[in-house]
């Protein structure tokens, strides 16, 4: 195989940036492909060259293998890295890449295919001596498997086509439903029944194989904390795996890889029962999202190894005899509302700044838009430390200190998990988030006192910004009065509520300030539009503040908050222009569209006039009730004549 000189990444976001980073370090050129929704994301600008994939949906863009290959050819790329998801486990695409004369940075298509069928993979594994869960391919055989069991689609993934069955009586219907779902989702109705382990640990082993016959295990990862079958906290090594078990898992994983003639990076997933017995679950024939924790503990660059292997080189000695040190934990930062059923959230990240001391693999930066079209993961944050406890602490501290605004994320949930006692004890399994309700664990880190302090800091920073931006008198004391009669104030929003902050900055910087009418003892050490250094209620902290487009974001050691700044004056377009229902000019009434008593919405047409050969529609100025109609069709009216009267609803 030829040396790789230019890699196209058939993916987006953080994984594209991750591959580009290693490629750059290796002196290899980079090519991105991007959908219309992603045109402004950092990965596009960071690539040497980029090719647009018109459209936004995955089916129109990142799943269009033909366009991707054409992009590679157009840019002179000689290799394709698929990242994870999208086309990464698509054997047909892998074959097409190779057929186009490009290097495929991934496993052989046959291996992808072999592992793509769950049923086929289970059979292969059993034959290779890898522990598997008992299963049955028929409803009749299910009794031997035992209950509870899981009805699974052979071609499935991501939880679709799966049914847990605890009662044998429900089995037949579950099979039917799962089968129908599988046929719809994957075009293959094959299902099977597998023994179901309640809340096992999710343990996986990173394997690497080259074209020279080497297959190695790069130790295990534990990814037990999941929501809706998606991992959110991943670590290496597993707190539940000792050296013997590690060796056993490694051997099983290597055997699994050998069984399918595997080449490149792969992950063999196992479920593990409390007695440490484990069984093969599936093999992921790609680079995993959570690969950084393995990189941290082994010191290896897995993308580099992928590129070397794809170029036909043997695995380097450090990969053939891997060692591990310390403990690494990764969390996935999602744009989602953890307290509200993990609903994905979209919007613009006004601020995105992950604190130092950790590794951050992100697909976004300040100003990036989180679109609704793809996975809601915006970054992975990874801490590596000598011990698990230290890694958790470091990661939690970094997350707390990170500035993420504009889009709701699961940051607070992640911070709480990293400090939760069961997690710290290593007692994690896939049922973790069922025991610890995300609505509670994901609640805002900032308490009421913190919110008051943040509101105060927001007001003081806005004040500083006003002074700094002033065109005249900007060096004169803020809000100075020779005859003080009232305080300055700003009204911030918080949900549906309002927080009013009143303040006076008096002589020599002394401050009188109240949040919601309650005084806060403030001593201001320095103030600027972006940072307030103040003692509040006796504790000095630095509050980082960013105000833009009517919102002010505050970060401090207490947590994070964002407040909309309510305007001093109502937008005039919200005003009802009183008397709008008079004739704007003399003319004839052509049509009367409402009757007295009718309920109308703002903007509803009420009366149509004709004057000077033109029709004029008189519309309702507000939502309300038509209390009077004073004209009828055909009637001539003078300018200013009242046509109808609308009584606006109370709130409009």
């Amino acid at each position, binding site marked *: 195989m030829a040396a790789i000189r230019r890699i196209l990444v058939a993916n987006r976001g953080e994984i594209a940036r991750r591959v580009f980073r290693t490629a750059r370090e290796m002196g290899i050129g980079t090519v991105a492909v991007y959908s219309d929704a992603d045109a402004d994301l950092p990965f596009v600008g960071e690539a040497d060259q980029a090719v647009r994939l018109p459209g936004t949906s995955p089916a129109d863009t990142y799943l269009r293998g033909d366009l991707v290959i054409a992009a590679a050819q157009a840019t002179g790329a000689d290799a394709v890295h698929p990242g994870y998801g999208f086309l990464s486990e698509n054997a047909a695409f892998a074959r097409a890449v190779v057929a186009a004369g490009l290097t495929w940075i991934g496993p052989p298509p046959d291996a992808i295919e072999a592992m793509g069928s769950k049923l086929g993979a289970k059979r292969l594994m059993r034959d290779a001596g890898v522990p598997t869960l008992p299963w049955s391919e028929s409803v009749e055989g299910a009794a031997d498997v035992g209950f509870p069991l899981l009805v699974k689609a052979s071609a499935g993934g991501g939880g679709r086509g799966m049914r847990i069955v605890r009662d044998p009586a429900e089995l037949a219907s579950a099979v039917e439903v799962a089968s129908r779902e599988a046929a719809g989702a994957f075009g293959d109705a094959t299902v099977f029944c597998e023994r179901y382990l309640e809340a096992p640990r999710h343990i996986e082993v990173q394997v690497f194989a080259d074209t020279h016959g080497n297959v190695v295990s790069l130790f295990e990862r534990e990814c037990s904390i999941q929501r809706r079958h998606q991992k959110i906290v991943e670590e290496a090594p597993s707190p539940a795996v000792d050296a013997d078990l590690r060796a056993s898992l490694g051997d099983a994983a290597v055997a699994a890889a050998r069984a399918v003639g595997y080449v490149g990076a792969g992950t063999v997933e196992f479920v593990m029962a409390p007695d440490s017995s484990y069984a093969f679950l599936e093999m992921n024939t790609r680079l995993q999202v959570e690969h950084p924790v393995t990189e941290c503990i082994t010191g290896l660059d897995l993308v580099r190894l992928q590129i070397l292997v794809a170029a036909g080189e043997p695995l380097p000695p450090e990969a053939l005899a891997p060692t591990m040190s310390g403990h690494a934990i990764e969390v996935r930062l999602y744009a989602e509302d953890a307290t509200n059923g993990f609903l994905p959230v979209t919007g613009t990240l006004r601020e995105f700044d992950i604190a130092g001391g950790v590794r951050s693999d992100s697909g976004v930066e300040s100003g990036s838009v989180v679109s609704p079209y793809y996975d809601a993961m915006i970054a992975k944050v990874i801490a590596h430390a000598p011990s698990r406890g230290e890694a958790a602490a470091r990661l939690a501290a970094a997350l707390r200190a990170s500035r993420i605004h504009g889009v709701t994320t699961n940051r607070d949930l992640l911070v709480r998990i990293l400090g939760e006692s069961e997690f710290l004890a290593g007692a994690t399994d896939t049922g973790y988030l069922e025991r610890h309700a995300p609505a509670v664990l994901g609640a805002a880190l900032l308490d009421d006192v913190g919110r008051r302090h943040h509101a105060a800091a927001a007001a003081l920073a*806005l004040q500083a910004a006003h002074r700094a931006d002033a065109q005249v008198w900007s060096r004169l004391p803020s809000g100075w009065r020779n005859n003080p009669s009232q305080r300055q104030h700003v009204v911030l929003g918080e949900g549906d509520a309002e927080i009013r902050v009143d303040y006076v900055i008096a002589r020599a910087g002394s401050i009188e300030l109240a949040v919601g009418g309650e005084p806060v003892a403030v001593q201001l050490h320095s103030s600027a539009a972006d940072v307030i250094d103040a003692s509040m209620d006796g504790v000095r902290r630095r509050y980082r503040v960013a105000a833009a487009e009517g919102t002010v974001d505050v970060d401090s050691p207490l947590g994070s908050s964002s407040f909309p700044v309510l305007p001093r004056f109502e937008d005039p377009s919200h005003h009802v222009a009183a008397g709008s229902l008079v004739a704007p000019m003399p003319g004839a009434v052509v049509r009367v569209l409402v009757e007295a008593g009718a309920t109308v919405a703002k903007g509803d047409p009420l009366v149509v006039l004709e004057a000077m050969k033109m029709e004029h529609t008189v519309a309702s100025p507000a939502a309300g009730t038509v209390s009077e109609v004073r004209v009828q069709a055909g009637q001539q009216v003078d300018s200013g004549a009242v046509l109808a009267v609308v009584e606006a609803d109370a709130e409009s």
Partner: protein
Amino acid sequence: MPVLPDRVDRDAPEFAARRESLLEMLAEHDRQLALANGGGGERAVERHRQRGKLLPRERIELLLDPDSPFLELSPLCAWGTSYTVGGSVVTGIGVVEGTEVLVQAHDPTVRGGAINPFGAKKQGRASQIAHENRLPVVNLVESGGADLPTQSEIFIPGGSGFRDLTQKSAAAIPTISLVFGNSTAGGAYVPGMSDYIVMVEGRAKVFLGGPPLVKMATGEVSDDEELGGAEMHARTSGLADYLAVDEHDAIRIGRQIVRRLNRQKLGRPPASSYSDPLYDIDDLLGIVPTDLREPFDPRDVLARILDGSEFDEFKPLYGSSLVTGFGQLHGYPIGVLANARGVLFNEESEKAAQFIQLANQIDTPLLFLQNTTGYMVGKEYEQRGIIKAGAQMINAVSNSDVPHFTINMGASYGAGNYGMCGRAYNPRVLFTWPNAKSAVMGPAQLAGVLSIVARASAEAKGQPYDEEADAAMREMVENQIEAESKALFLTARVYDDGIIDPRDTRTVLGMALSVAHNNPVQGRRGFGVFRM
């Protein structure tokens, strides 16, 4: 650059005593300000609020840019008179949409915002400040017009208010009226003469004659809305340019109008960066004696108000009881004349005349720090021509064209008040420290003079002089003059633009300088004949 030294001993007992004494005066001043802010009293304020209306200072606060400073003018106008302190109107200089403006707001809680003779004087002064400094005027109108019982004192001179408005317009100084309530009879011409008029729906009433007057004059029966309602004016008469749904909306529109005025300052901009004074301005309280007989060095004041405490003294060895020199204040170059030991001798007068001419040559504004008991009297000084020297100084002050700013720091007596740019010499602003006094001469001297003249008159007529009556007369006169010399008495009559806390001096001057630079600063090149 020469930096003034810090020579203040903050641990000295005199420092603490002066500070305490001045703080007492400031506390009294604050009590009077609280009265002014109370408007027409609790009941009137309550009634006003119940109608859903804002107080004049609330309207102003809403109008101003958030967190921007505001300099209220003549807040204690009419103090000590039979009128409500404040004069039923609030005036001041503030910033709206980044533009310096002059704001006038009637106080409808005081006799319906009717204008009395003191309020008229206060408004006249505010109008003059707007004109001289090219400040757009925003009128927050709610006034029933002239205070009828005092009409004789304001009807005829009061017409100048309307003349001023239209002359501003002619000078391209925009005038804006936001009408919140009654603006009737003569008051109707305040909006009437303005460039822009905003009226609050259902509240503004602008007519020459209300229903009763119309009935009496012509027999016509009409109501308020027909005669002068906001809607009528917006739709029918066209007097209202904008119809606001409520007070907030009117203020929003007022801000919108100012934003579109596209005002540009014609004067030079201040230095883009400059240093604060090196020493705490708080020290002024311990520096300035409240006993006017005690002299103090104005350099200690300058060290606390000039940028970087830098002061290039001019002619320091000549006429040393007047300190002259150049510095910078909030980024603006400034020339300073400050009394050092009260008396102005021949040398001081000549030095002042020269310095004022120099400042005009280099287009530099002048700051007068008054603490003078007047020009020196006595044979020697008369014979050396003190009148000629004083005339030179007054000539220079009178004909100088650069902006003048005057602070009365203590004494301002006799012709010294004139030479040091007192009220009659039209400084752009004149502010008084609470300890200051001003009169033709000191109370004891004045009483003494009267006594000597009376005694001489009695002697000439060969009558015996009644010593007891003389003592009583002297005491009475002394008390009267003392009372009439006080800062509060003077500020009540709009003889200054307000009493300020000495610690605010730098801030106030910074605003005044900035405002003055709405016009180019251009000194006079030729002066009147100097009597030599």
